């Protein structure tokens, strides 16, 4: 069963994002919201971990949370998709289950 994992903590501040990556299964989706959005940027100390996860998982980021933090969408890692709130809703509908990593 495909699961949507929702992460809202910065990967630079908490181990939450690492734990999510360690527990998500192949075929799952991961959505970065709130402070987790900063993890989508390329060239960071976290980028390689996310790129590795992208081999078998789909990664999304909430666009409004990127721009709120002064980060433009053209700086995110290739292959990460941006979504708005409607896209967030679609993701929850398209996956059988969701897990929020608080």
């Amino acid at each position, binding site marked *: 069963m495909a699961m949507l994992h929702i992460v809202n903590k*910065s990967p*630079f501040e908490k181990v939450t994002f690492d734990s999510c990556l360690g527990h998500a299964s192949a075929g799952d989706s991961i959505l970065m919201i*709130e*402070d987790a959005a900063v993890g989508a940027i390329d060239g*960071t100390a976290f*980028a390689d971990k996310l790129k590795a996860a992208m081999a078998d998982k789909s990664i999304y980021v909430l666009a409004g949370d990127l*721009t*709120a*933090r002064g980060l*433009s969408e053209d700086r995110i890692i290739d292959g990460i998709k941006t979504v708005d709130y409607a896209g967030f809703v679609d993701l929850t509908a398209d996956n059988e289950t969701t897990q929020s990593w608080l």
Partner: protein
Amino acid sequence: MSSKKFMFVNRKAPYGTVYALESLEVVLISAAFDQDVSLAFIDDGVYQITNGQDTTGIGQKNFSKAYKALGDYDISKLYVEKESLAERGLTQDDLMDLVWEDEDDDWAEKSSIILVSREEMAAVMAEQEVTLSF
């Protein structure tokens, strides 16, 4: 009242939690008490002063422009840690142009941002008499 060296340490990204806004409010209050105030931006705190913040997509108030007023309150020492920027794929070009006017130099506009290494930041922290962490 004698002046003391105050440092506000900012370690969190804005908007996801209320720490950044709360810190900014206390900093502005502290300016009224004529203290020697410095700000430190380390870890995710560096996101607080990024350029071009646009919060229309998340329905929250964009308070980033308030940092531009700090110079007018004689708060002109904003220490930003180089390592924290680099770990996040950022450079000084990604930060707001925060300035103050030096009355001893014909009101010349000078940058408030002082880029320091982690080691230098530790030394600045060690000089403080009061440290408030957010």
